[in-house]
């Protein structure tokens, strides 16, 4: 497969993630959607890395680092979700509307 195939998959995944983020109401699902987007980025990076002529592996290393960051991100995100559910009993972001101006 050429690079286009991978990029198209990556794009689709990114779009799906973005859709999920915008369309879903559940905080955890929104978080999952963001993870999908991160993964789309990773796929692009690894694909670029594989097909780019100067083989420095920057893409692959970057992808690895993004994974680590994503792990941290999920940790923090879920901690926040747990904290908010303690005070609100729901993970539906629609119902988080105390902050209004």
């Amino acid at each position, binding site marked *: *497969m*050429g*690079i*286009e*195939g*991978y*990029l*198209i*998959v990556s*794009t*689709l995944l*990114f*779009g*799906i*993630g*973005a*859709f*999920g983020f*915008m*369309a*879903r*109401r559940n905080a955890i*699902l929104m*978080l*999952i959607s963001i*993870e*999908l987007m991160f*993964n789309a980025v*990773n*796929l692009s990076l*690894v*694909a670029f*890395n*594989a*097909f*780019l*002529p100067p*083989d*420095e*592996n920057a893409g*692959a290393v970057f*992808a*690895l680092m993004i*994974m*680590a*960051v*994503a*792990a*941290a*991100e*999920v*940790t*923090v995100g*879920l*901690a*926040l*979700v*747990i904290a908010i559910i303690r005070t609100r009993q*729901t*993970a539906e972001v629609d119902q988080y509307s105390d902050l209004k101006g």
Partner: protein
Amino acid sequence: MSRSNSSTREPTTLDISSVLFFLLAAGVVGAGAAVVTLRNIIHCAVAMMICFGSLAGMYALLGAPIVAAAQVLIYLGAISVLILFAIMLTQAGDANLPAPFHRQVPIAVVVALAIIGLVGWAVVQTDWGLAAEAASAGVDAIATAIFTTYALPFEIISMLLLVAIIGAIFLARRPEEDERAS
């Protein structure tokens, strides 16, 4: 570095890697779509794992086994578990709410399609001028790179993880447990 390079390529024969690519792509996209559309959040999480697993396959196909392994290790082994864990801690039963979607689904659809369309167009449009076949990212090379060239980013990540962990522990801990912890 020119378009002709790739356009004169032989029509792709259906080799094993192509078949695998299409299978995995179907897995990625299909499971991805399932993630954002299924109603039961645990099903979403499971679909997410399938999606991530397929992505690991793609990385392997792209000659980056170490990334694939990391994908399985981090995303399937750690992040998914964490997410499942959180789902169970927080919303064992919210799973089947009648309306899992925002009202602005149409907007989301439009935006997502716009992103896909725009980027997809750009993918096709761009003269990538790259190698026709995936090159392999050697494990040794990556390992060496991480500890020499990328030493600084690597250390930054360690700080990032430290603060994320401490912060997350603090946030997820019950308030009354704080009293005990200090």
